């Protein structure tokens, strides 16, 4: 079942001269884990915001084409309606925090209260996301006293608690250490395996390679390619697109070692090890 349909999407921010998104068309199946990559200002964040309706409802601007998320056409629905289907974790957790709540616990409750979830279920859901994101120990802290990493975990927790069918994440682990970011990726992967559709804008290419089913490569607001991580990272023009492939792919490319039986280079540590074993040293 197609969970997300984007057809000919064009968008220009108010006062901007150039299109932020230019004729973007793609479809996503339910339960897919999609990575969005591209250099800064390629349109990644704008595309994320178009999936939750902040583009165009909040930012205004010129809008053309169609975005349909779980059967709702974004243009014709309110952000409130869309928020029941799609949750978005912001790039900077600081901009996502409400600023009106005194504890992490209440902060996570905010969205749930807003959509009228019964009190007992709110409590259950908060306990479960506190556990999933490993932030139980700070549940009574003020959100603004948290470290960058903790705040980012809270930001993710407050969206996951809403149980959206589509989860949009804009660089969700930028403030986390490698172990923490691995934990968060595994948590997201487990949601994806439960059938949640995940859209992730990310600069950490090693993570994109490891976790995403398909990768959408953007440049100047246009889709350059939409394919498996192996195919995307094997492209010869990656540098021109402003992307540096995972380190494993770069080393295999330099040595001309492809995945056995394919025309593509390895993208993960495991695959690179397999391909290079016996070929080097």
């Amino acid at each position, binding site marked *: 079942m197609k969970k997300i349909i984007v057809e000919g999407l064009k968008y220009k921010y108010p006062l901007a001269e150039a299109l932020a998104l230019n004729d973007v068309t793609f479809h996503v199946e339910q339960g897919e884990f999609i990575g969005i990559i*591209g*250099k800064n200002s390629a349109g990644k964040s704008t595309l994320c915001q178009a999936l939750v309706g902040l583009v165009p409802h909040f930012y205004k601007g010129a809008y053309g084409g169609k975005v349909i998320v779980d059967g709702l056409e974004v243009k014709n629905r309110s952000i409130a309606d869309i928020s029941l289907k799609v949750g978005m974790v912001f790039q900077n957790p*600081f901009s996502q925090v409400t600023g009106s709540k005194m504890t992490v616990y209440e902060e996570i409750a905010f969205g749930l209260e807003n959509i009228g979830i019964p009190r007992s279920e709110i409590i259950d859901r908060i306990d479960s996301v506190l556990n999933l994101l490993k932030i139980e120990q700070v549940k009574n802290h003020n959100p603004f006293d948290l470290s*960058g990493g903790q705040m980012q975990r809270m930001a993710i927790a407050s969206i996951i608690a809403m149980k959206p069918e589509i989860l949009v994440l804009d660089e969700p682990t*930028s403030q986390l250490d*490698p172990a923490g970011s691995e934990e968060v990726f595994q948590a997201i992967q487990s949601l994806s395996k439960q059938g949640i559709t995940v859209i992730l804008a990310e600069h950490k290419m090693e993570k994109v390679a490891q976790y995403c089913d398909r990768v959408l490569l953007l440049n100047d607001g246009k889709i350059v390619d939409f394919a498996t991580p192996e195919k995307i990272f094997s492209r010869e023009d990656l540098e021109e697109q402003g992307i540096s492939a995972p380190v494993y792919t770069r*080393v295999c490319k330099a040595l001309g070692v492809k995945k056995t039986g394919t025309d593509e280079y390895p993208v993960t540590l495991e695959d690179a090890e397999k391909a290079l074993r016996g070929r080097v040293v």
Partner: protein
Amino acid sequence: MIKVSNLSFSYGKGTPLLSGINLEFDQRSTAIIGQNGAGKTTFVKLLKGLLKADEGEVTIQDRDIKTETAAELAKTIGLVFQNPNDQIFKRSVLDEVMFGPLNIKLDKARAREYAFQALKMVELDDKLESNPHDLSLSEKKLLCIASIVAMDPDIIILDEPTIAQDHSGKEKIRQIIKTLKDRNKLVMTIIHDMDFVAENFERTIVFNEGRVLLDGDTRQVFSQKEMLEKANVEPPGITQLAEKLGFKDTILTVEEFINMK
């Protein structure tokens, strides 16, 4: 340049977040790594005099920082915050970067010149009149670096400089670090991007639960797999790949890997 002796610190009355830290810093570019909550940011805030130690002392260029005001210290040591929104408060990019130099009592003409040079270095010199809050996160991070560089301190600490940077942004930051090094600055960074550490920093210090677990040349630090595991730190991807393939030496970059095989 910096000498830290027996430094301890706790927030409130809780268990100490940092205890018994002894470190000396020379001109080598230095990366401080370790898990969230290991005490990295607290440590650099102590160096900068933004927090006061419970015990121990810090001397910078042989001056005890306890006897100096934060304003005096600002001429010698600059800290670029992790979250640009904590640092930015002016209405234009140029004013933002001129604020520091003016505050350490440079005259307006020189403040402007230093600010302009710093903005040129981070390639924001075409946005002098922009409102800092209209910049993207990656540009804000570069703006914050410029604000500190404009004060021309001898020591520059970058807290997570590569967050939100794409490939070319990281290249820019690599170049900035190199330029600062060439000007004989001590460049220190707190960072989670191990590949970036391996490629750019001579010395690496691993913090774990408020203590220094490892300290040495970057290559030597990344060769200590078990100690790193204890601190929950992963070596760079290329280092792991080489290790799995049985390379005898610790590899830090793709170039080294290719030359070694």
